[in-house]
């Protein structure tokens, strides 16, 4: 067996870790796709939104491994959505991929600027500043008539490479696109976590000063992770805009950021599959609990969050790991 092309010294696992994740991710993606293409429309829609939100959550993963919890991912989520929607409204852009690209790019640009400031903060101040920034966007959007104020506006049906999917296949196309993007992002983040910067990510949480004393810039690592998180959130927002067909300023409200944090904690940060699991479970609970009793779903979520924090600090994913070990 050839030496693994990364830092893992031999003996860490009998198979090169990267390949195992690659096959696992691809298998799951394939299974999800096949199963869901046969599912009813509402399920396809639910899964699409869940996976799109999962993108935002996987963007949170590196930050949370550093010990930093952003309460402002909604900033980029909303920005990505509005960018995609406005591209359609003002520039007649209807291609889904282009909309996603615009959402992600605009988020990247903002994050590259904002990140310079935010990467200096730690603990609750990181959370508070990120929250303030997303509320700034909310404040702006809510009062801007041209963008529909609190009502937001609708997003026209999308096209894909010039072809407009028929009514029946819209959900299928959307699902295939989002599953592909989710799979790619999972692999990208996985690879990222194996690079030096990715490894330093976990070190920061334990002992930032030691890392500095080794010759590394913790700030740089945090900055990189922040920009990555922003881009993924922007992409997620653009997808949701296209899938739902409507966007409004609530997408930037702090409770939206809270949802993403919630999903991240629920699933844990141990695996790149966890964010999507967390997002799916959350969306499922939201839908079903809401249908059964609209005034108790938040309670159920709150209680689950509490239970996870207290008893399963690594998130629900740690249950899988325990099963694996035994």
């Amino acid at each position: 067996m050839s030496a693994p092309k990364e830092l893992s010294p031999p003996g860490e696992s009998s198979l090169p870790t990267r390949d195992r994740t690659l096959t696992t991710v691809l298998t799951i993606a394939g299974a999800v796709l096949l199963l869901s293409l046969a599912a009813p429309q509402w399920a396809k829609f639910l899964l699409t939104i869940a996976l799109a939100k999962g993108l935002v959550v996987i963007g949170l993963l590196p930050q949370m491994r550093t010990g930093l919890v952003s309460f402002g991912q909604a900033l980029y989520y909303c920005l990505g959505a509005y960018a995609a929607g406005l591209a359609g409204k003002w520039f007649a852009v209807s291609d889904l991929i282009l909309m996603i690209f615009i959402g992600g790019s605009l988020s990247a640009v903002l994050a590259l600027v904002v990140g310079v400031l935010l990467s200096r903060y730690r603990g609750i101040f990181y959370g508070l500043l990120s929250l303030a920034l997303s509320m700034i966007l909310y404040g702006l959007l809510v009062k801007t008539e041209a963008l529909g104020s609190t009502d937001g506006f609708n997003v026209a049906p999308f096209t894909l490479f010039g072809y407009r999917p028929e009514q029946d296949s819209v959900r299928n196309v959307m699902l295939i696109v989002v599953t592909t993007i989710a799979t790619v992002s999972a692999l990208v983040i996985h690879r990222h976590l194996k690079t030096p910067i990715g490894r330093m990510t976990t070190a920061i949480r334990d002992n930032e000063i030691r890392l500095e004393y080794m010759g590394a810039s913790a700030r740089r690592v945090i900055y990189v992770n922040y920009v990555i998180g922003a881009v993924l959130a922007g992409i997620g927002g653009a997808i949701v805009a296209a899938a739902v067909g409507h966007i409004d300023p609530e997408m930037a409200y702090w409770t939206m950021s809270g949802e993403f944090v919630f999903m991240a904690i629920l699933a844990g940060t141990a695996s790149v599959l966890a964010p999507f699991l967390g997002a799916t479970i959350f969306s499922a609970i939201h839908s079903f609990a809401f249908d059964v009793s609209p005034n108790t779903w938040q309670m159920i979520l709150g209680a689950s969050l509490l239970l996870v924090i207290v008893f399963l600090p690594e998130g629900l994913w740690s249950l899988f790991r325990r099963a694996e070990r035994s």
Partner: protein
Amino acid sequence: MALIVSAEGLNKKFGAVTAAQDITVGIERDSVVGLIGTNGAGKTTFINMVTGYLKPDTGRILFDGEDITQLSPREVTKRGISRSFQIAQLYNSLTVIENITIALSVVLDNADQSGFFSFADPIVPGFEQKPHEVANMLLERFQLQAYRDRKAQILPGGVRKLLDIALTLVAKPKVLFLDEPTSGISAQEKFGMMDMVMGNIRSQGGTVLFVEHDMDVIKRFSNRVLAFYDGRIIADGPPQTTLSDPDVLKYVVGGHRAKG
């Protein structure tokens, strides 16, 4: 003999406490210097200033001719000065091998290797070997193989200190500061530990400064001793002379317990 580190007129006060008073000293390349003094005498402050953690109120520090006084710890480390800590500073939730991997990651990253888009096998600069080979070498040299997959948090104190020191060597430093490497180690084991540590350092070459309270260790391993008291250097010379210096006996060793 070229001076690799030189401190000129360093002063540092914390309110009413004078941590450093007019510290001026030149360290020769490849020397092994023992830093002695009671607690609070200024040894750690000196190390903190040279490694960039504290900035002196006045004075400057030169490393290989370059003024490094205002540089951050990160910058100082990248130029070739590393340090270990009085209380071992490790990544507690990570295993021993993962701790070493972090140190390797930093070195590789600084050498622009092993990034997201690089698919070539990385080579650790300074060792010209693959990362896992360097890791295994360090584990072996510091007798840490048995602890390889244990979390740093649960390691015994002596092992933590060894790991702390091992981590500093990954960057192949030209100057290494060891802050009380044997503190917390039992008297019988001190010599063995220092033998191992110094042997490993010598095989890499470089200048070493270490803080130590055990005078036997000082005598055995250093070729020069700096004695600190009240923020000043009160004696400077080879161990035999310095350790019998009357001021040193009075303020550091304790006159009535003078050892020959």
